[in-house]
C-alpha cells in the first residue's frame, strides 16, 4: 500500500516538474533532435552564432517582458529598432569617420537609447492618459508602430544607409562574445529589478490586478509609463547590436522583430494577462525560438514555412500555460 502511495507521489512529482519546466524540456528536445538530424548543428561556431543572433531579439524581449508583466503589450518596438538604427548609423557616418572614435560611438549609443526611451514614453503616456487596458495597448502601440515606421521611411526617403564609419568601439559591440555578455548583463540587471525591488514587485502587482494595485496606493500610471519607456530603451540598444553586426541600417531593419520578441516572452511563460513570469522565463523563451529557427534553417525549412511553426508555437505555449493554470486552480480549490 505504502509502495503504491510512494509511486503515486513520485509520479505526481515528475508530472509537476514536467509541467513547470516545459520550456526547458522543449529546448533540450529541440537541441537533441536537431543534432541527430544535422551534424553541423552542434558545432561551436554554430552555437556561438545562435547566441549572437539571439542577443538582439533577446534584449528586445527583455523590454517587452516588463511591458507584458504590467498587463500591456508593445507592438511598436520593431519600428523603434528601425528608426534607432538609422539614427545611430547616420550619427556614426557623420562624426566618426576616423578610426577609433570611441567617444562618438558612446554618444551614438546613448542618443539612440534616449530616443528609444522617449518613444516608449510617448507610447506609455498615450496609454496611461485615459487608463487603457490590454485591448487599447494593442491598438495604440500598433498605431505608434505605423507612425514610427513611416518616420523611419521618411528619414531616409526609403533608402538604406551603408556604414562608412571607421572601426572602433561601435563595431566591437557585435564581435565575439560582446553581444551575449551585453544581453546577459542587461538580463541580470532587469531580473534583479523585477524580482528584488519594490518597483518590480509593484509591476507584477499591476499585471495581476490593476484596480487592486491602484487602490493599494501604487502609482499605476507612472509605473506603466516607465515600463514602456524601458521597452523603448531596450529597442534602442538592440538597434545598436543589429547595426553593428550588419554595418548598415535600413528603414525596415526591425519590422517583424516585435512578433519575435512577443513570441519569446509568451513562450517563456510570462502570462498574457500579466503578473506572472519573469526575465529568466524570457531568456528561456528567446533560446527556444532562436535555437528552433536555427535548427529549421540548418535542416533546410524555408522562411515561409517557419512562419507556420512560429505561429503554432505561440498558441501551443500559451495553451499549455493556460491548461496548467486551470489545473493548478482546480487543485487549490479542492
Amino acid at each position, binding site marked *: 500500500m505504502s509502495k503504491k502511495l510512494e509511486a503515486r507521489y513520485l509520479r505526481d512529482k515528475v508530472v509537476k516538474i514536467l509541467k513547470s519546466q516545459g520550456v526547458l524540456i522543449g529546448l533540450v528536445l529541440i537541441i537533441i533532435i536537431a543534432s541527430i538530424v544535422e551534424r553541423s548543428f552542434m558545432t561551436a561556431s554554430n552555437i556561438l552564432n545562435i547566441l549572437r543572433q539571439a542577443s538582439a531579439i533577446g534584449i528586445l524581449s527583455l523590454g517587452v517582458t516588463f511591458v507584458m508583466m504590467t498587463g500591456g*503589450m508593445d507592438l511598436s518596438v520593431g519600428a523603434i529598432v528601425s528608426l534607432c538604427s538609422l539614427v545611430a548609423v547616420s550619427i556614426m557616418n557623420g562624426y566618426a569617420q576616423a578610426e577609433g572614435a570611441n567617444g562618438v560611438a558612446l554618444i551614438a549609443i546613448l542618443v539612440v537609447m534616449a530616443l528609444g526611451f522617449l518613444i516608449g514614453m510617448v507610447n506609455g503616456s*498615450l496609454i496611461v*492618459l*485615459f*487608463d*487603457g487596458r*490590454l*485591448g*487599447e495597448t*494593442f*491598438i*495604440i502601440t*500598433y*498605431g*505608434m*508602430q*505605423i*507612425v514610427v*515606421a*513611416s*518616420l523611419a*521611411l*521618411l528619414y531616409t526617403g*526609403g533608402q538604406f544607409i551603408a556604414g562608412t564609419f571607421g572601426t572602433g568601439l561601435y563595431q566591437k559591440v557585435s564581435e565575439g562574445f560582446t553581444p551575449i555578455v551585453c544581453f546577459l548583463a542587461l538580463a541580470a540587471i532587469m531580473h534583479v529589478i523585477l524580482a528584488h525591488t519594490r518597483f518590480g514587485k509593484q509591476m507584477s502587482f499591476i499585471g495581476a490586478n490593476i484596480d487592486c494595485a491602484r487602490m493599494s496606493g501604487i502609482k499605476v500610471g507612472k509605473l506603466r509609463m516607465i515600463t514602456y519607456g524601458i521597452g523603448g530603451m531596450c529597442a534602442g540598444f538592440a538597434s545598436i547590436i543589429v547595426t553593428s553586426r550588419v554595418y548598415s541600417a535600413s528603414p525596415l531593419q526591425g519590422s517583424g522583430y516585435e*512578433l519575435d520578441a*512577443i513570441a519569446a516572452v*509568451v513562450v517563456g511563460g510570462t502570462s*498574457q*494577462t500579466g503578473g506572472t513570469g519573469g526575465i529568466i522565463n524570457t531568456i528561456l523563451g528567446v533560446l527556444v525560438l532562436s535555437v528552433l529557427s536555427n535548427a529549421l534553417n540548418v535542416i533546410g525549412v*524555408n522562411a*515561409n*514555412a*517557419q*512562419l*507556420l*511553426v*512560429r*505561429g*503554432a508555437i*505561440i*498558441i501551443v505555449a*500559451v*495553451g499549455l500555460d*493556460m*491548461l496548467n493554470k*486551470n489545473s493548478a486552480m482546480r487543485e487549490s480549490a479542492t
Partner: protein
Amino acid sequence: MKRNSTIKARPLEIILDQTVLFLLFGFVIFMAFVKPSFLAWWNIQSILIDVSIYGVVACGMTILIIGGDFDLSASSQYMWAQILFVTLLNATNNPFISIALTLLSGFILGTINGLIVTRFRINSFITTLGTMTMIRGLCLVFTNGKMVSTLNPFIKRLGSAEFLGLSSLFYIYLSVLIIISLMLAYTNFGRRFYSTGGNLEVARLAGINTAFQKTAGFSIMGILCSIGGIMLVAQLRAGSTQYGTDLALTCVAATVIGGTQLSGGAGSALRTALGMLVIVVLYKALIYLGLQAYYQNLVKGLVLILVVMFDLFMTRRRAIRH
C-alpha cells in the same frame, strides 16, 4: 445606453454622439473646396467599392468586438480567401463550387480561432496573433509570395456589373450589412452577443452558452473574411499576400470611429459602416491631395491612435458619470 442619451439630450452629448457624421461632412466639404473633382461620380463609385470590400469584414469585426473579442488574423484570412478562391477558380473553372469551398474554408478557419479562444481560454489577441502568423505562412508557402490571377469570365462579369450606376460589390455589401444588422438587433442569437460582451459571467449565469456564442462570432468573421476576399478577387481578378495587410486594424478603427466600444457589449454594424466610410474618404483624400505614401501611412497611424484615445476618453467619461 443609446436611448438614454437621446432622452436627456444635451448639446455636447449630441455632437459627440454624432462625431462620425460631422467628421464625414467635414472631410467631404473640405475636399469639395480643395479639389472639386473629388466629388466626381467615378470617384464616389471607387470609394464605395473600397468601403464595400473592407466593410464586409468590418461587419464581422463589429460582431466580435460587441462580444468582447477581437480578430487580428482577419488580414491573413482575407489573403488566404483570395488565394484559395483564385486557385480553385483556375482548377475547377466553376465559380459556384469555388465560392462555396472558399466560404467553407473561411468558416473552418474562423471556427478554429473561436475554439482555441473558448477551449483553452486564451485571450483572443494572442490567439489571433498566432493564427495570423500561421495563416500568413500558409499563404506564402502556397504561393511562394507570388501573385495569383484568374481570367474566369463569371468573375469578370461579377466585378464589372453595375446596377443603377453602382457596382455589384456594393449590393453584396448592402445585403450583408442588412442581414447582420437585423440579426444583431432582432434575433435572440444576435442579442446574445451583446450580453456576452457586456458581462461574460452574468451572461453565463443567465443561461447563455457564451462559449458557443464566441465561437459563432469567430465563425461568422471567417465567412465574412472569405466574402471580402472573393469580392476583392472579383474587382482585381487576382489575389496576393500584399492585398489587405492593414485590413484588421482598419476594421477595428472603423468600428471604433462608428462608436462601438472596445470594451464590448454595445454597438451596431450600421455605425461601423459609417465609420468605414469616414476612413475610406480620408484615405482617398490623402491620395487625392498627392501626399507621399509614407506621409499617408503616418496619417493612418495617427488617426488610429486618435480614434482609440477618443474612444477611451468617452468610455471613462461615461464610467465617471454613472
